[in-house]
């Protein structure tokens, strides 16, 4: 469990993924990459950690990842093999929203 704060840098325990928190709600969030909890700061991954086979969708550098409600937003700064999940919900690449009609 981690309290996410904008600007916080996190890395995956099981792949090369690195990200920065852009937006986050208050409180503890169980943020996982490749099935394992993500690490902040200088935390070291357990040596036998591996990407879970059902959590191997991968991350893409420069993409922003968000939950369905768009409460959490993360920027991937280094790509990896694991998928991102927050409190059990898979995070997806944020897509541009159509602008509302102006007339």
């Amino acid at each position, binding site marked *: 469990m981690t309290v996410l704060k*904008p*600007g*916080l*840098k996190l890395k995956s325990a099981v792949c090369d993924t690195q990200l*920065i928190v*852009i937006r986050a709600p208050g409180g503890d969030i169980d943020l996982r990459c490749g099935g394992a909890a993500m690490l902040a700061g200088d935390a070291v991954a357990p040596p036998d950690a591996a990407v879970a086979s059902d959590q191997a969708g991968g991350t893409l*550098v*420069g*993409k*922003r990842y968000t939950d369905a409600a768009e409460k959490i937003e993360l*920027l991937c*700064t*280094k790509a990896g093999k694991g998928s991102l999940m927050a409190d059990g919900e898979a995070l997806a690449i944020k897509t541009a929203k159509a602008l509302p009609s102006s007339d």
Partner: protein
Amino acid sequence: MNIVTLLEMAAEVFPDRIAVTDGARTLSYAGLLQAAQAAGQAIRASGAGYVSLLDIGSLAAPVALYGAAYARLPYAPLNYRLAKAEIEALIERVTPAYLIAGSEFSDPLTLGDGVSLIGREAFLTFDPPAEPLSGSDEPRDVAVQLFTSGTTGQPKAAILRHGNLTAYILGAVEFGSAEEDEATLVSVPPYHIAGISAVLSSTYAGGAWCCSAISSRRAGSNWRRRSA
């Protein structure tokens, strides 16, 4: 998020791509990162409170922007077209200053004790630090301080924080969206917001940033002649 994160991402993914050129020389993204780190260390050692640039666009401009962020100081580029007394008054407002300048702009000035002056060429010659520097994690820290033109009184200082600039870039630019052979020809001066956002946008897009060969004080008319 800090503006140096934009550069670090580009240097990680496209280390060998051309980041900036002045027509004769180039810096790759890895080279720009190294130059910014080296500049950041030199700026930190100077004891200055601001990093200022009094110059036309050159390789030194992006190095100064990112170097200031590594030094964790505001970057305050100045309008070299102002009168001598106006430039001196602005420099006083950013003293103690680390001032990067072309000699044609700094030679006529009388500078106070708190100004560390360095030429635009000498600024690019530092050795990188033994341990990499990091930018601040505080998005409220000031990244850039721009002065308004002063047409309605004393120039006012407009504050742009790391969070402001990175939010703008993330919302407006797709990472790595530039083709490897794509370049942005920048004709706006480095002290204008368009000159700042051009550097940041080009970095995040992974394209090349070309500073135009404008050297006249009457840059606008000169530029039109060159491009005609």
